[in-house]
């Protein structure tokens, strides 16, 4: 059940905890993509958590698209806690999606700003 090492896991008590601002902050800090993995729809312990997360991911997608960063860099997946292989499958899919899209464009801009100033990125 190997998944790509490019993925950094941030644990939250429920995907309902994930808000748009957390996703945007991740991109500000240079993340190339963000995806939330929630429980199967209809099986949220808190009833609405994964549905809320889906809506917030959609809001983040819209904002990222408007900003020219790319809405596809934020995604939502659902699985049950016993589906390890599927977790890896989604991770590989997301990793490939981001590789196809390329790095977060703000990192390129930051690097050029730093190099203009003679600083290390």
């Amino acid at each position, binding site marked *: 059940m190997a998944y790509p090492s490019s993925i950094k896991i941030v644990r939250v008590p429920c995907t309902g905890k994930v*808000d*748009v*601002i957390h996703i*945007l*902050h991740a*991109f*500000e800090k240079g993340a190339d993509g963000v995806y939330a993995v929630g429980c199967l729809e209809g099986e949220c312990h808190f009833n609405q958590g994964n549905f809320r997360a889906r809506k917030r991911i959609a809001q983040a997608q819209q*904002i*990222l698209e*408007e*900003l*020219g*960063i790319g809405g596809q860099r934020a995604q939502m997946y659902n699985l049950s806690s016993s589906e390890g292989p599927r977790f890896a499958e989604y991770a590989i899919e997301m990793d490939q999606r981001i590789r196809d899209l390329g790095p977060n*464009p*703000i990192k390129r*801009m*930051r690097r*050029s*700003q730093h190099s203009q100033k003679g600083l290390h990125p």
Partner: protein
Amino acid sequence: MIVADKKPIAEIIAAVGDKRRLLVLGCNECVTVCEAGGKKEAGILASALRLYFLNQGEEAKVDEITLERQCDHEYLEEIRDVIDRYDAVISLACGVGVQFTAEKYQAMPVLPGVNTCFMGATEKRGLWTERCQGCGQCILARTGGICPVSRCAKRLFNGPCGGSSKGACEIDKEVDCAWQLIIDRLTALGRMDDYEEIFPIKDWSTDRAGGPRKVVREDVQS
């Protein structure tokens, strides 16, 4: 409460122009409840603007502060010490807050970050509907608590027009006929005799027709 809706980010970016030191100013009152301009929305807009400028390869400083209210002097004073650090303020308060901030800080461009819509209620999360137009002369006591000024497209005072059909207004089948609602409510209250009473011509001078309004309460002035 005053209900507002978010402005598209592109419109805000266009209004910002060449200013690169920005303060996003949220408001903790009505616009927080309608999820258009509270602390959370101020954070999201500020983050989105930072991302936008980074993506354009431009250096920008975008901070966010959320005040308890932007329609009171005392709360607006809280930014006096920091406001000089910015080229413009994007206020996420209603039009009242935007104007009051602009009045208080004369040399600072204050840009609206939301569209102020109406005075309304939260029917459910994500659905706000108009309930009051502030006409200055409340008649709800006579209409069973349902306002024909804000809820009837024609602002009629003596029953529905011919466009009322199956409880809906002719402008949109999704819009309730206010007079149907009033009649239903008066019936439920056993007060249909009130419906037969003719409303006198309304004095609209207390509405916007009389120009900008004010309320003076010398009894509470200091």
